[in-house]
């Protein structure tokens, strides 16, 4: 039986600006917080306990370090609304209440070379993925796309070579990370026979990535961001439309999976992209 999610009181250990629009916050959490796998997230209460009702916000975990009395996790994010603004205003020593780690992580495919594709702040879980699989998969690459140079978060410490792309062409390849992948497939820098794709970023990017993967017959896993009610499987709010597997018998219930407990990482070939508002 599932005992359920555990609520933790964490504490901000560091917070700093990265790039022009990013914030990296490190939060120490007590013993009992299970070391996260890349792709998992934390549900953070973005406000003091006494504040008016506000749903928790999901954040991908980009860094983890086990310590003597628990651990420290890193969250890389941009301010997009009231919740992330509250988190951005934290200072070292402040309390942060969180639930985690939650959700299904990336499942690295043995024997295939990992090609990580990040769009904007979607780089967060891929940094943790690279760190966690570099030993078993030493030949991976990170293809990192962003709007422009200022929107690129630092990736120092990433064990994989990083190839950048910007929409305005100011840094690296002109275009998206998926355009860059396309070019590398054509030029032989990435070989479809041996690659496995792991993506995180805006929905249109993940849709394009999944289409390209299907055309090239490359396995692809994508981490989807949807509106969450609870993040713990209680509310059924974070529906993701899925296609049935070939030959699989499903009832109508299975048309929608839950991003929080079935995902956020999904097989890109199974996502019914037409059913998702981009």
């Amino acid at each position, binding site marked *: 039986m599932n005992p359920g999610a555990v609520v933790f009181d964490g504490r901000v250990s560091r917070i700093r600006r990265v790039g022009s629009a990013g914030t990296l916050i490190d939060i120490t959490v007590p013993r009992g917080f299970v070391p996260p796998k890349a792709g998992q997230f934390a549900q953070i209460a973005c406000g003091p306990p006494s504040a008016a009702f506000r749903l928790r916000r999901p954040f991908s975990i980009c860094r983890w370090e086990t310590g003597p009395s628990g651990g420290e996790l890193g969250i890389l994010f941009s301010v997009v609304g009231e919740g992330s603004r509250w988190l951005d205003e934290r200072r070292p020593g402040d309390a942060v209440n969180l639930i985690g780690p939650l959700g299904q992580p990336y499942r690295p495919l043995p024997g295939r070379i990992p090609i990580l594709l990040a769009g904007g702040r979607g780089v967060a879980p891929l940094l943790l993925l690279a760190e966690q699989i570099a030993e078993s998969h030493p030949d991976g690459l990170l293809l990192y796309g962003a709007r422009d140079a200022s929107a690129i978060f630092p990736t120092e410490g990433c064990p994989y070579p990083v190839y950048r792309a910007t929409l305005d062409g100011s840094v690296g390849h002109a275009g998206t990370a998926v355009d860059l992948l396309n070019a590398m497939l054509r030029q032989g820098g990435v070989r479809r026979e041996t690659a496995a794709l792991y993506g995180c970023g805006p929905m249109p990017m993940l849709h394009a990535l999944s289409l390209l993967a299907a055309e090239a017959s490359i396995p692809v896993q994508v981490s989807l961001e949807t509106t969450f009610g609870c993040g713990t499987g209680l509310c059924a709010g974070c529906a993701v439309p899925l296609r049935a597997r070939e030959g699989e018998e499903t*009832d*109508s219930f299975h048309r*929608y999976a839950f991003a929080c407990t079935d995902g956020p990482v999904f097989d890109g070939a199974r996502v019914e992209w037409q059913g998702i508002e981009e």
Partner: protein
Amino acid sequence: MSPEAGRVDLSVRLGSLTLANPVLCASGTFGYGIEEAEAARRLGAIVTKTVTRESRAGNPPPRIVETPAGMLNSIGLQNVGVVRFVAEKLPALRDIGVPIVVSIGGRSAEDFEAVVERLEDAPGVAAYEVNISCPNVKEGGIEFCQVPSAAAELISRVRKKTMRPVWAKLSPNVTSIGHLGRACEEAGADALTAINTFVGMAVDLERRRPRLPGVTGGLSGPAIRPLALARVRELKRNVSIPIVGVGGIVSGRDALEFLLVGARAVQVGTAHFLRPDQGRIVIEEIDRFLADRSIPSVESWIGTLEEG
């Protein structure tokens, strides 16, 4: 902790049922009741998400919009259907050891009857909560509540199928919840759950579109608590069967308001999205509040509101 905390008698009688404490989860805010088993163990009873005759896919995303002091949802009763519920969910629910109230839904009276028939063979169901108030399905939801006689007809048909307690979950989106409640009482309901969500709407100014694909959704959370409380009071003046109060309860004090007005139990709903174990916190806060005032039991608090 006050010296007396933990010595307050938290148990409540709800018709033929006796619950260890008055705090339940609200249908649709706690999954099937097995996702958070540790938290579920502390509740007075578990109310499952609504179960229907056939499985349901639910509504297309997005299904959730946050609003001031609350949220809109349009889930659309996504569930595995009663056959799989009995086979896959009910055994684990029984293992939790807390009374199980199964919320049932359907498009027609026949659907409701079929769900009950299937559940009647299954042991361990303490009561049925008849969901005649979902605002997010095209058929078989809220319209049962629009005409009290239609609600009464449905409740009496469910009543004939079972000896188990039948609760009617009422919508606040009606002209007179008092009339509706009385009709359900006369039709044989053993208790009333009040209230389901309020129909609400939010729009995206940039895209000039509704934020939910179905345009409207059900509003829940602290925003509706005073509205819910007034509905419970109105019902209290119109019926003599027990009322289960629900709407925006987050704290023990919130729950105590409903109990004071006359609800014999309460349901914690949307607050579970902030903390899966919020029900336990509400129970502990009720215990502490009553202990601090030397009130020996929840029963001696229920319905003691002094008006005028």
